């Protein structure tokens, strides 16, 4: 194992998140301890309600855990106020959401540069060019989101996530709304960003094909890490998912 692989980009320690109280209490996260390694493409999978989105939101400084610790790039998120959290998201975290990723009034270029311009920073032109060419959007930079296809919009979102050179990129079902060709393009790009640019990417998905692009898959159920796979292929992922589903079914029975 190399240094790059052992370095931790983000981690959680005994993370709990509960919603509501009393009878209606829901434990979205029930003691998650997890290290996300730098330079890796990690998938977080699990059935609906397993807490995978909550985990990502807590790690991405979008949501505060009930207890436990979430650390990004060595910073304990619980120690930051809203403004510092915002700055951290802006500077060290990249986001790709499932839908509604772009500001409709801004052009593709302006959308990509938004985190930088909000911070009042100038883009690194060479890096910007590299990213643009990697997502293949050079001829679309002047267009508004409404003039782009769904796949193109997600590529713009990917470019935005990378352009500020974040410590970690969180992708929340980035291919959830796309056809298989566009999905393939997006996943190939995220893979490349890890392989060629050394980026760290964490992706929440329930698509086994998407997970097969990753270095590691973490399985969540009922708010806990129940399993994980290294260098998975599609069949392995499906098997694990099926096992989790039936375990869940058995529990219900």
């Amino acid at each position, binding site marked *: 194992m190399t240094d790059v692989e052992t370095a931790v980009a983000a981690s959680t320690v005994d993370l709990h998140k509960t919603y509501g109280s009393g009878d209606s209490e829901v434990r979205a996260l029930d003691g998650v301890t997890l290290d996300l390694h730098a330079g890796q493409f990690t998938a977080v999978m699990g059935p609906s309600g397993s807490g995978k989105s909550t985990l990502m939101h807590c790690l991405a400084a979008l949501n505060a855990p009930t207890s436990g610790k979430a650390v990004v790039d060595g910073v304990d998120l619980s120690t930051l106020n809203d403004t510092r959290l915002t700055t951290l998201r802006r500077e060290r975290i990249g986001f790709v*959401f499932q839908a509604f990723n772009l500001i409709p009034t801004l052009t593709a270029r302006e959308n990509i540069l938004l985190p930088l311009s909000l911070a009042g920073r100038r883009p690194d032109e060479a890096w910007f060019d590299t990213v643009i060419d990697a997502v293949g959007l050079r001829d679309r930079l002047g267009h508004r989101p409404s003039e782009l296809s769904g796949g193109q919009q997600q590529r713009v979102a990917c470019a935005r996530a990378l352009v500020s050179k974040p410590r970690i990129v969180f992708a929340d*079902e980035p291919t959830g709304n796309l056809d298989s060709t566009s999905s393939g393009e997006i996943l190939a790009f995220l893979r490349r960003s890890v392989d060629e640019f050394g980026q760290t990417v964490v992706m929440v998905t329930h698509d086994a094909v998407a997970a097969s692009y990753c270095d590691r898959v973490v399985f969540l159920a009922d708010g806990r890490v129940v399993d994980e796979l290294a260098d998975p292929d599609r069949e392995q992922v499906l098997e694990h998912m099926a096992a989790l589903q039936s375990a869940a079914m058995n529990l219900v029975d």
Partner: protein
Amino acid sequence: MLRLTLRNLLARKVRLVMSALAIVLGVAFLSGVLIFSHGLSNTFDNIIKGSTPDAVVRPIGTESFGQSAPSTLTVTPADVSRLADLPEVAAADGSVDGTGLFLLDGAGKLVGGQGAPTLAFNHAGSVNMLGEPILELRDGRWPEQPEEVLLDHNAADRGGYHVGDQVRVIAPNGDLSRTLSLVGTADFNGGGTAGAVLVIFSTPGAQQMFLGGRDAFTSVNLTAADGVSQARLVAAAKTVLPDGFTAVTGDTVVDQSQDAIGQFLGVISTFLLVFAIIAVIVGGFIIVNTFSILVAQRTRELALVRALGASRRQVTGSVLIEALVTGLVATTVGVALGLALARGLAALFRQFGLDIAASSLTLTPRTIVLSYVVGVLVTLVAAYLPARRAAKVPPVAAMRADLVPKERSLRRRTLIGAVVLLLGAAIAVAGLFDPPGNDAAWIGVGAVLWILTVAAISAALGHPVLVVCRSVFRRLFGTPGQLAGENALRDPRRTGATASALMIGLALVSLIGVLAASLNSSVDDLVDEQFNADFVVQSVAFTPFSTGVGDKLEHVPGVGIMSRQQFLAAKLGGVDGSSTFIAANDDRFSRIYDLDVRSGRTTLQPGEAFVSKDAADKHHWRVGSRFTLSFPGGGTLTPTVVGVIEPSQVAGQINISLDDLESVGVQRQDSSVSIRLAQGADAATVQRALAKVVEPLPIVNVQDKDDFRDSVRGQVNQLLYMIYGLLALAIVIAVIGIVNTLGLSVLERTRELGLLRAIGLTRRQLRRMVTLESVAIAVLGAVLGMVLGLVFGVLLRQALSDDLTSLGLPLGQLVVFLVIAVVVGVLAAVIPAVRASRLDVLRAIATE
């Protein structure tokens, strides 16, 4: 369907409350003005009816509450007893009415000040038409000795006097500054005095003060014997009247007084009503906008209802019922608020001395009906367009993902708008070339067309302004600024409609600003050109003052030439002719003032007159023409026109010789005294000496050219600020519109705002973004309004160029308006911005 409608109303209560607030304020202002006007005219009616006897004997040609010059004619006690002896007469009370008396407070300041008059008369013990005493004693006792007086209780309060105090007054003649003992307070039977100051003497006291101690009376109050009608009473009285006197029935006096007062009250009511109507119209704009947005937000729901089988009419109907309920509730609250507002107005007028009884500020059926009709109708009319649009939502929209229907192109509307604008411009410009009818009315029609059209196509017109805003914001505030600019540009209709409400207010404010600036600048020109005296001595309220003042001024060292002038009302032609204001000048007037003479001369001998060009044109007078003036008491004068002058600030339309006045029985007083310095005299020293002479007379002051200009400007500005104050309400309502629109925009863009927060927009930046969008809307409204106001202000000035000889542009004020617009934008954004920054980022970005 009805149940669904009512559910909708409740579900969107915050939004509805905000838009209803616009109607609430408009209706509150409207009903407040109606209630107040009603209370005002009630107050005067009560006073008039409560203070008028069955019949009055008075000099021919005088009018109660009218503007007639005080007559020197009197009746003797013998005349009074002849009247009293008539079988039709139960009582004849000789009355002494004096003018030129003023009440001072303990500090020597005038009580009553501007506005309402000081009425001084004797306590004659007369009863009014209803058989009640005209005066009711409130406190103390009636005056008996010449040096004893009563005041009305309000005047006593304002002067800080209590029964037993020495009261300071300015007498009309002789030793001007005097003290009298206050032995009681009394009020008119009708309650209140509407701000007038009453000074009540004993009969000998009044005769000493006003008639030089002669045992005589200026008029006689008659009370009819049992069963005698007013007409019979008057007919009987006329048989024994001395020359120059006539008898009129109490009903006639009441009618004449109500006419005269009614005109004055009508001006106040109309003035206030205009602003109430403006407020209601602006409120209507906000209703249009709110309902448009509500309908847009509900597109999917409406489509679902349509898909389930609701007809277009049902959909339109449901939106209109929503508007009806909103209108009803808002009007009800508005009327209640109006009652409070009327009290506030009454309190404000009390500050100016106009006392309105709170008991007369009541809701009349007329006020209630009018408020509901206006409030509900405006809401319904304003909601009609959005309601029709709601019905056009195709049922299939329920199945589509894109919630907001594509806005129709603005092109057609803009094109039609441009045509109407051209039409409006043509009408307005036609107003400059002597069209049939009133020039200003043509321009007014053009202005209304423009305001409505600009409001309708503000979406297109506003674009350049918003683009400028965007680039300024980007430069000053970076990305949040740019995003704000983009947001303002994103729904041009909504931004435009919201800005329109503010536009109306600012258009009016700028228009008034241009007219006021032009008036000021015209006055400056006139003063520069015509103010040839070094000093002018005038009374603050333009009430004439004792000639004794001039007698003393004349002897101040350094006074070179002094000229006296008396302004008075006279009737042109016979006793029944139209009342007109004339000036009577002494022979030194033309030596001080260098009038612009068109023909003839301005030096007057007795029996001569010079007139302005306007008066000459109106009456077809030339040099050599003769005309007749009638004065109270029946005196007439038939002067010959010896000169025609250009319009002048210092001379009247008709100017006669001062020497003629006494011969026609008019009491001599001075309205204005002009002074030119003697050669080598020091202006400052002389001014100090002159000021010392008038010092005991707070009603009179000495003005040099600058003071004079300032005092005229002061009057213009006072009116201007009052109008601005009233227009502020329209601006407050417009602010509500901005708050409303921003609130909805924030709600609609929840996910977008969440995304921005996720990728690094701080709360502060978010608040700034919302605030700047608000500022963009406000600036758009301000710019459109100011351009409209300027254009029509300049056109209107041109149409009125006879009076407004010079154009003034209030550039400083316009800058202030723009700054105010920015502040308005910032204030309007406070609540929406805080709400936006408190959005839960997670909920905002969570996928459905």
